[in-house]
């Protein structure tokens, strides 16, 4: 366990020494790292590949912007996933992707007395980057440990069992729906929290939080980083720095660089492939 958490903690110690800008980017990376964690709980342990993680992410961000007191309601959106899981595992990625596109479009219509719409809302709660960074880093580590413990625990084992074979699970007395619900709920909670942190970081929420970039982000980050809970943060850092950091150094080529890295990591053979 320590061997898994330590590199992450070390990574989190570097950015504060590299100035505001790097700190800010790292902050984004950590927030999206938390989103990736939530995605991996669904993909790795429960076997549901979701392209709609931007839904709980964005919804919670919006709720925070519109009325901070209702933020506790955010995790309820796990019901969306539960409903979509009716289509079965093979269709789930598609179903979630479409739903995320739909929410993306729909969010353009959300106006409250003339404000909002495509311009989005600004968040009342504003904090200095350092504070948010500290919070995000801590939250990430907490969730990391929590998920590692969970996947080793009895209930984690049961979730994996349901993932492997639902009929076998029933035949030994496990109710698949129950464990699916549990996994989805935890995942939604984590995604919501990452959305909230994201909203606070930018102190502004606009429809782009539902955009395919965030829908695909966890999938990309986790795939290029070996798909383990404790490694996904590195993938997250890589993607964020490639997409955000080089904008001013080579504005022309930074996206191509990103694409090259994507392709490279996709075809790269890992030590032991999970």
């Amino acid at each position, binding site marked *: 366990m320590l061997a898994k958490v330590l590199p992450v903690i070390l990574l989190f110690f570097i950015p504060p020494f590299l100035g505001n800008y790097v700190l800010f980017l790292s902050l984004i990376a950590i927030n999206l790292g938390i989103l990736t964690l939530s995605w991996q709980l669904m993909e790795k342990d429960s076997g549901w590949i979701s392209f709609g993680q931007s839904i709980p992410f964005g919804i919670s961000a919006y709720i925070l912007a519109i009325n901070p007191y209702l933020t506790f309601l955010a995790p309820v959106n796990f019901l969306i996933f539960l409903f979509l899981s009716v289509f079965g595992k093979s269709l789930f990625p598609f179903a979630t992707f479409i739903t995320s596109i739909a929410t993306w479009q729909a969010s353009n219509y959300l106006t409250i007395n003339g404000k909002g719409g495509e311009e989005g809302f600004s968040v009342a709660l504003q904090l200095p980057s350092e504070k948010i960074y500290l919070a995000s880093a801590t939250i990430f580590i907490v969730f990391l440990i929590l998920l590692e413990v969970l996947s080793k625990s*009895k209930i984690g*084992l*049961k979730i*994996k*069992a349901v*993932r*492997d*074979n639902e*009929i*076998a*699970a*029933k*035949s*030994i*007395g*496990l*109710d698949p729906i129950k464990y699916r619900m549990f996994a989805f709920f935890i995942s939604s909670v984590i995604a919501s929290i990452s959305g909230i942190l994201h909203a606070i970081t930018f102190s502004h929420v606009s429809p782009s939080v539902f955009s395919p970039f965030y829908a695909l982000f966890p999938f990309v980050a986790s795939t290029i980083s070996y798909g383990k809970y404790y490694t996904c943060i590195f993938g997250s850092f890589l993607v964020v720095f490639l997409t955000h950091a080089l904008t001013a150094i080579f504005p022309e080529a930074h996206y191509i660089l990103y694409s090259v890295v994507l392709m490279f990591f996709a075809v790269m053979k890992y030590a032991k492939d999970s």
Partner: protein
Amino acid sequence: MLKIVNLSKFYGKLLVLRNINLELDDGIYCFFGPNGSGKTTLLKIISGFEKPSSGRIFFNGKDITKMKPEKIVKIGISIAFQLPRVFWNLSVEQNIFLACMDKEKVYSIAELFKLKKELQNIPRKLSQGKLKLLQVSMAYARNPRLLLLDEPFAGLDVESVEQLLDILRNLKQHKSMIITSHRPKLLRGIAKKFFELKGGVIAGSKENPP
């Protein structure tokens, strides 16, 4: 213990079981008959994985006709399918553990089913015979009143069959079972009654296999 009252099952127009009436007390029973005679369907219905078109099933006087499979397991009926249904990406140990939820028992069960060496492997690595043993062991690990074995000998080599028979002999004293097979002779001296299923009806029952 198990009471089945004029149970019928149709798939659309196709009739699979017709007016099955049975009353079984403790002990081992064998259902034999050609393929498609409804053996498997009967077990699936008892274990709740399929719902009957009509009729009722009582287990220790409790009506289980409409119960979900995961509930039926909890009240003491567990099934080992013909085609192995196990958790492919978890180790044998975890598979058995999931069934019994008790670290100590895992080893005794592994002992009993001759799986001690394979505990750390994943099911994909097991031989057909071992896989079947794992399947049965998981059903057994639930410690049910009634154990349903669907074609336990199908696709096994001679020695695995022997192994499985040994185990069944050991269990004979303290477990009730319903075993379906198209090779009833194997169960001579194990099962106390043999029912013949033909075209979805019970064609007859004998003390000894034909």
